[in-house]
């Protein structure tokens, strides 16, 4: 099994930490992992993306052109990464703030209303865990218990009290992800 994932959005949305939790989850089940961020002077509000690979074998390139899964959290990232999903792959996105929805018909597309759900749950920071839950529903590549272990590893101990909330968010994402049927682009 090898799963090649791109997660892209704004800095501050928890893009990098979502990737980190996923990578740690892979380690918990003895997989090879890599986590390759875009880095730069952009901080909060700028664009951020991370390539995460989980594999049963030694990972060759940590830097990729095409992905099995794209998790897309803003419009700039949609513009940039929709085309990088391999045919037959999946694209997961939060429709909040998306004006041009994905149009590919050779991939599976899903929506998670993570921004809205996080607000309902009263904590905007669990946004990324809702998304992660959605992803794990469609691609159960890591067991939930390993995600929780991964969370413990990547959160400093003073935040461990937040783990139940994170677990709730993951479950919320799992139950809220819905398929989206792309309307083919009309060629004018």
């Amino acid at each position: 099994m090898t799963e090649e994932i791109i997660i892209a959005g704004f800095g501050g949305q928890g893009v990098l930490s979502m990737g980190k939790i996923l990578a740690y989850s892979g380690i918990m089940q003895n997989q090879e992992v890599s986590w390759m961020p875009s880095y730069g002077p952009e901080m909060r509000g700028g664009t951020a993306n991370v390539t995460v690979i989980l594999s049963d074998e030694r990972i060759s390139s940590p830097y990729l052109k095409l992905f099995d899964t794209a998790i897309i959290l803003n419009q700039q990232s949609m513009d940039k990464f929709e085309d990088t999903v391999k045919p037959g792959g999946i694209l997961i996105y939060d429709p909040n703030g998306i004006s041009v929805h994905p149009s590919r018909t050779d991939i599976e597309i899903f929506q998670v209303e993570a921004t809205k759900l996080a607000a309902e749950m009263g904590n905007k920071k669990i946004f990324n865990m809702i998304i992660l839950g959605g992803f794990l529903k469609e691609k159960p590549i890591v067991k939930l218990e390993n995600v929780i272990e991964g969370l413990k590893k990547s959160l400093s101990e003073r935040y461990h009290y937040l783990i139940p909330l994170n677990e709730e968010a993951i479950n919320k994402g799992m139950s809220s992800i819905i398929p989206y049927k792309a309307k083919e682009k009309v060629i004018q």
Partner: protein
Amino acid sequence: MSELKLMKGNEALAEAAIRAGADAYFGYPITPQSEVIEYLMTEQPEKRTGMVVLQAESEIAAINMVYGAASTGKKVMTSSSSPGISLKLEGISYLAGAELPAVIVNVVRGGPGLGTIQPSQADYFQSVKGGGHGDYKLYVLAPASVQEMSDFVEDAFDIAFKYRAPVLILSDGLIGQMMEKVQLKDQKTRLTNEELIEKYGNWAVTGRKNRERNIITSLDLQSEKMEARVHRLMKKYEQMEKEDLRYEKILCDDADYLIVAYGSSARISQKAIELARKKGIKAGLLRPITLFPYPKQPLFELADQVKGILSVELNAGQMIEDVKLSVEHKVPVEHFGRTGGIIHTPEEVLEALEQKIINNERTRHHKTRESSIL
């Protein structure tokens, strides 16, 4: 046993320095390697092992602090990124001239000038062809994974003390910034001052006690003595070539076409040869792990087997010169690489292999020439 962790390359390197029993680290912040000193400052190794960590006022000061500690036989390291390494080169030349052991890490970014903070391999020439002034070379290790960022620290110290010479770990922004699973080594104890004096008292400046005075200098105003010093250095480099060359061959046994790449480019190229083999192209990868000494002989031998070689580097074509020197015109050698901080994708590398090597007129001509000889 040792711990398994998810770490950034830069952090793994910093942790490895503590665990290797380093006595001191001196550095100055620069992207994309600042995590090294940040990690060390957070970890407070002074409390863990007694290791000294100091943020210097400049890269120049940092490398000269390295020179100071190395003069006394201490295990000392510094790290920086390209523009900072340029500043350190004077000190690196002094370290080589004065025959001092030290580990220098370059997490390369794109240049020239202030360049870009994105990954690059454009410091190949600087690293293996001298860089600083004078007749000297560095032993250069090129890690291609976070695990190697960790492992190579101890290896580098071992080589540095074996030869009493500076060793360079040539990483880049990609390897430094990415996270992977890493198996950390167990903590090594630092030498006590008494142990150090016992081991290195024949040359280190530790205070002139029960012996003649020791002097550390790179200066010899008498030409004959200076030439003898240069010859002594050259002998070390010859010995490095004989005893400490490192490289890795991947899918080379039946390869018709060869990619030569180190560090992050080797990782990307490995994926490219996997893609190539899915298309039925027998491609292999030779990864130099040491850039000096360079795997000249393995390349020379592979040149009898393959029809063409692509040197893949994140630069405008630097290592290709060593590939060409190694294969002595036996087969066509071409370069492929993105610059400016752009990282080539495995697909781009494969495309370059097809266009520049497989479909190259000279490669085809070469094939026919070879078959005509047969």
